[in-house]
Each structure stands twice: as structure tokens, then as C-alpha cells.
């Protein structure tokens, strides 16, 4: 779709102060920064050449040096400052900081982030006056191992961890090479190459009960991911209350459809033990439609649990 004159005007108004403050960029770099094409940016700049203050004499026009590999605004006239931030722009930054802050372990950097957040939030209350319309109550549990893992990622070295495995229900000691970390629904996870399993695994930080740094670095032949585990599909009919579970594990849910008063879900999984335990922990009716051997294992398990109470 062709862009409107208004979108073009907005970008042009933002280009002038940006380029005044950041001289010497190439057209390609500017295009990337403004999520536009080099041809479009060139046209914008050509247009800005023609803009100026009333009078429109040579000294009143916007002036610049313009070539494909060097752009510099030599006279921005009175457009040297950026337009004020809109409410949604401010919200994007303050809320983004809010999510980031629990992940910052360095106390000084954390203070900086908090002060930035307060400064930008103030712009919101100075503006239209109405309070913010978006909030987050996300918290992230921090663990003692966070800092050790950060160090291991920075130095590409291995760490030995004691891990409380959710699916095997045991504590294991493993040598892992952390690659990256992420937070999801209040927990921090590390993606790491696990020597024991010979593949990339995700480790939840609060399940790591001990960390010992090592001097090992990852051998080159192990850094490429090994072949993925074989996956299979499992069909389950469940109580509609379990929509929450399906939303929380959207990445392994292939399909969900209403089935009479229940939900029919298809999972794609690589770890039967994990799914079995999660299904045991769901409220209401849970019926495994297939595969048949998975269903058999599940009901045998359920029976064994109930037997403990007879």
C-alpha cells in the first residue's frame, strides 16, 4: 500500500533532527534505521531540500550535504529538535524498561534503568494528563546462579550445575555451556548445550541448586546442535478450565477445538514423561484419545496414584 502524505511528513520531520545529531551516515544506514527503502529516504531528503522558513530565500532553506554514502544536515533551521513523544511511544519505553529491570543484576545499571523509567513516565503525566493505560505486574524470580551464568555466557565457558529436573523428578549434576538467557512468565531460563544429553536444553534458574564454574570451553564439534529429538502427536480431550494450560504452552499445542462442552487439543511433544505429569496436574476431566500406548501408560499411572489412597 502506498504510504500517505502524513506518514511521509512524520518521517521527514523526524529525519532532520536525527541527521543533524548523527551526521555522516550512508543512505542505506538511514533507511535501515527508519525501516524504509534507500530510494524513499533519498526522495525524502530531496524534498526537504525544498523546505524552509517563510521567505524561502537560500538562507532560509534547510541545507544538507547529500550523497549515497554521506548525509549531513548543515542547516536544520528550526527543526533541530525531535517532535515530542506520543503516549504509545512513551509507553513502549517505560513498559519495556519495567520488564527489563528485574533482569538487571548489576545494581548501578538497575538504578539507571529505574531513573530512566521515572523520567519517561513523567513525560506521560506532563502530557495529556491522563494516567498511563498500560501496566505490568510481571516479576522475575532471581536466583543466586544468575550472575554465574551471565559470566559463563560472556566467557563462553562451561559450568557444572546441580539441576532439579521437572520431568525425571531427580537431582542431576551436569556440565552445561550456557548460550543465552530469557525470561518467561516470571521465570528465568538458560539455553545451554548440555553435555550429558548431547543437545541444547532449557534450564529454569530456580531449579538450579548449585553452580561451579569450570575452565572448560565448548569443543567446536559439539557446538552445532545435534539432531532433534523425535516428536509425536498426542490428542487430549479436556475440561474447558484448562484453556489456561493450553495458552501457557502454546508452542507445543498444534490445534485446539471445541468438542461438545470440552476442548480437544493436539500436542506435539518430545518428552512423554513431562506431558504425563502436566496432564496429571490438570483439573477436571482429562481423556487421552491417542496414541493408545500413551493413554494406557497415563491411566496406569493415575490408577497407581489413586491406589495409594485406598
Amino acid at each position, binding site marked *: 500500500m502506498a504510504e500517505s502524505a502524513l506518514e511521509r511528513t512524520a518521517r521527514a520531520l523526524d529525519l532532520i533532527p536525527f541527521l543533524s545529531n548523527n551526521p555522516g551516515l550512508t543512505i542505506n544506514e538511514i533507511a535501515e534505521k527508519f525501516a524504509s527503502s534507500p530510494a524513499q529516504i533519498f526522495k525524502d531528503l530531496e524534498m526537504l531540500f525544498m523546505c524552509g522558513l517563510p521567505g524561502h530565500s537560500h538562507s532560509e532553506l534547510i541545507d544538507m550535504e547529500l550523497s549515497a554514502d554521506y548525509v549531513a544536515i548543515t542547516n536544520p533551521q528550526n527543526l533541530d*529538535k525531535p517532535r515530542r513523544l506520543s503516549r504509545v511511544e512513551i509507553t513502549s519505553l517505560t513498559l519495556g524498561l519495567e520488564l527489563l529491570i528485574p533482569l538487571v543484576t548489576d545494581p548501578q545499571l538497575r538504578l539507571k534503568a529505574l531513573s530512566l523509567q521515572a523520567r519517561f513516565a513523567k513525560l506521560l503525566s506532563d502530557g495529556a494528563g491522563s494516567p498511563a493505560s498500560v501496566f505490568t505486574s510481571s516479576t522475575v524470580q532471581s536466583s543466586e546462579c544468575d550472575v554465574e551464568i551471565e559470566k559463563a555466557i560472556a566467557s563462553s565457558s562451561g559450568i557444572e550445575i546441580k539441576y532439579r529436573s521437572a520431568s525425571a523428578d531427580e537431582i542431576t549434576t551436569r556440565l552445561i555451556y550456557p548460550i543465552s538467557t530469557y525470561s518467561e512468565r516470571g521465570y528465568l531460563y538458560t539455553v545451554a548445550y548440555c553435555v550429558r544429553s548431547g543437545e541444547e536444553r532449557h534450564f529454569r534458574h530456580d531449579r538450579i541448586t548449585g553452580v561451579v564454574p569450570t575452565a572448560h570451553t565448548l569443543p567446536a564439534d559439539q557446538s552445532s546442535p545435534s539432531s532433534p529429538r523425535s516428536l509425536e502427536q498426542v490428542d487430549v480431550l479436556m475440561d474447558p478450565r484448562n484453556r489456561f494450560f493450553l495458552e501457557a504452552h502454546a508452542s507445543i499445542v498444534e490445534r485446539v477445538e471445541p468438542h461438545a462442552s470440552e476442548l480437544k487439543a493436539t500436542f506435539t511433544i518430545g518428552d512423554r514423561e513431562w506431558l504425563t*505429569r502436566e496432564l496429571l496436574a490438570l483439573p477436571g476431566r482429562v481423556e487421552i484419545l491417542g496414541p493408545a500406548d500413551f493413554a494406557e501408560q497415563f491411566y496406569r499411572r493415575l490408577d497407581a496414584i489413586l491406589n495409594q489412597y485406598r
Partner: protein
Amino acid sequence: MSEAGPHKSERLINLTMALLASRRYMSKSQIFKSVAGYTGSPETMERMFERDKNDLRELGLDIEVGTEDPLFDDEAGYRINPQRYTFDIGEIDSEELSLLSLAASRWQNSLFSKNGQRAIRKVESIASPHEEQDLSLPFMRTEIPADHFEVLWEAVESRRIIHFTYHGLNETHRRVAPYGLGLSDGFWYLIGLDLEKEGIRRFKVVRIDPDLTAEKSAGGFVRPIDFDLNQELSMPSESQEERTATVRLRVGKSQELRSIASLTPFDEDWDSALITYTSQTELFEEIARSATSAILVEPIELRSLFVTWMKEKIHG
């Protein structure tokens, strides 16, 4: 038909520069005379200016209307206050800029990622040029809401009542005054006054049918001044009263429960665990996850509730 192309943009920029530069209110005739791009009959220029004024306001520019001398019935004039054109956030150092870039770039939500990038470009227009620092912080994974998130945001901001189908336990039709949006533990929620049920309700955005409609008239409701969105969002759904339960755990197993229990040996195969909990649901879930490695012993009423809860999986 609306104008397109470079001429219109050029005129809008010239107009912005003129209104910013003028200390006095500029009358329309002054504008038509001095700002490049206004041509045609007086009526044509009038219409052009009215549209241009609205367009600039849509870009967030604050165009003030006034007269130089209120005692005389002067023609209304226009100007842009340079201080209200821009924003003042003080000095931004390179570490702060890296934090902001990180905060803006990690959105997987299109509304916030688009606007976050725009905000960063504006901040980079005032911050001293810098080398991006690698702060190596974890990546945040949050729900990526569908396109109707933008409609919800607009409805909240312009205070428009919305109608939608909600896929909760049952499918229901709702009419809601949207008070705000909230991100809680990775999921987006809409918080608002349910006009049918006459109470504040929390709706999961993923369960709101994308086929929603917002009423035409903006300002259709007033959000109470004392309404605290953040408190509403973080309100626990279950009572937080602390209770204890005794659970028997197989030796060397049931690691998750062990991590929150105080343990004493029971016999060769089992330990006795005293567990303090606030959410009965979460306790049941964790015991069920332990399968045959955990047995809920006491209180006896809780034990029988657990058995009923487990049997529901078979009979519903």
C-alpha cells in the same frame, strides 16, 4: 479526495516551520502569503489549511489558536510553541541509550515494537552519538498478541466502549468500558467495567474474539480517579492465607515439593514433609506432578478433596 505525494508533505513541513518560527499568532492571510505551497482560490486555500491543521494535530503537534489583542476582534491566528513541539528528558548517556534500545527492541508486540523504534530515533536525535553497548541481558518472552491488541489500545486511549465475544468457560457477549491493559506474568489482560455485570472485570486478551467493535463516540465513559489499574492487575485470585499440609515424599524423589518443605525421615522409603502453602490448587498440582512419589496425609479433609480432584480426571 485527499492529496498525496511530495507537494502536500512539503507544504506541511513549511507550515510547521512557519508556525514554529512565529512568535506571534499567524493569521490565515499571513500564512497563505508566506508559506510556500498555498495556491488557488481563497476557498481552496481555506480548505487546504483546515485539512493541514488537522493533519499536523494528528502528528501530535500542538497548534495554538489565539489573537494578539483580545480587546479587538482580531482574526484568530495560529502558532506552535517550540517548547511544546519537543520534549525534554535531560542528558542521555550511552549506557542509558543502550538500556532504552534494549527496552524498545525486545517487544514482539507490533504496536509497541513499531512505536518503541520511533521513540528511540527521537531519543537518538538528542543524545550524544554513541557506540552501542552490549549489556547482554536476558530476552523477555511475552505473549505476542494478535492485531486486535491495537484496537483495544485505541479504545482505552480514546475511551470508547467496546463489544466483544469472550471465549471463557462459556462463550459470552460483553459490553465493556476499557480502563486499561496490563501485562502480567507474560500474558496480556484488558481491565474494565463490565457494563452488563456492573463490576470491574479482567479479560485475557487472547480470549477476546478478534472480531470486536468499538463504539463510534470517543469519551464514552470516565475512568474513576481512584481506580488503580496496577492493583487490579496484581490482585490475587485466591486467598493468600497460609495453611500447612503433611505430605509423604519418596526418598530421593519429588524434588519440587522437597524444595519448599521442612523434612523429617519417616521410614526407609519415605520422608515426612510439612508444607506451608497459600494456594490449594498449586499444592494439588505439585502433588499430582509427583505422581506416586507423594502422598497427601493430612489434614484429612484436604486429603479427601485431593482424591476427589484426582478422580475428576476420569469421571469429570
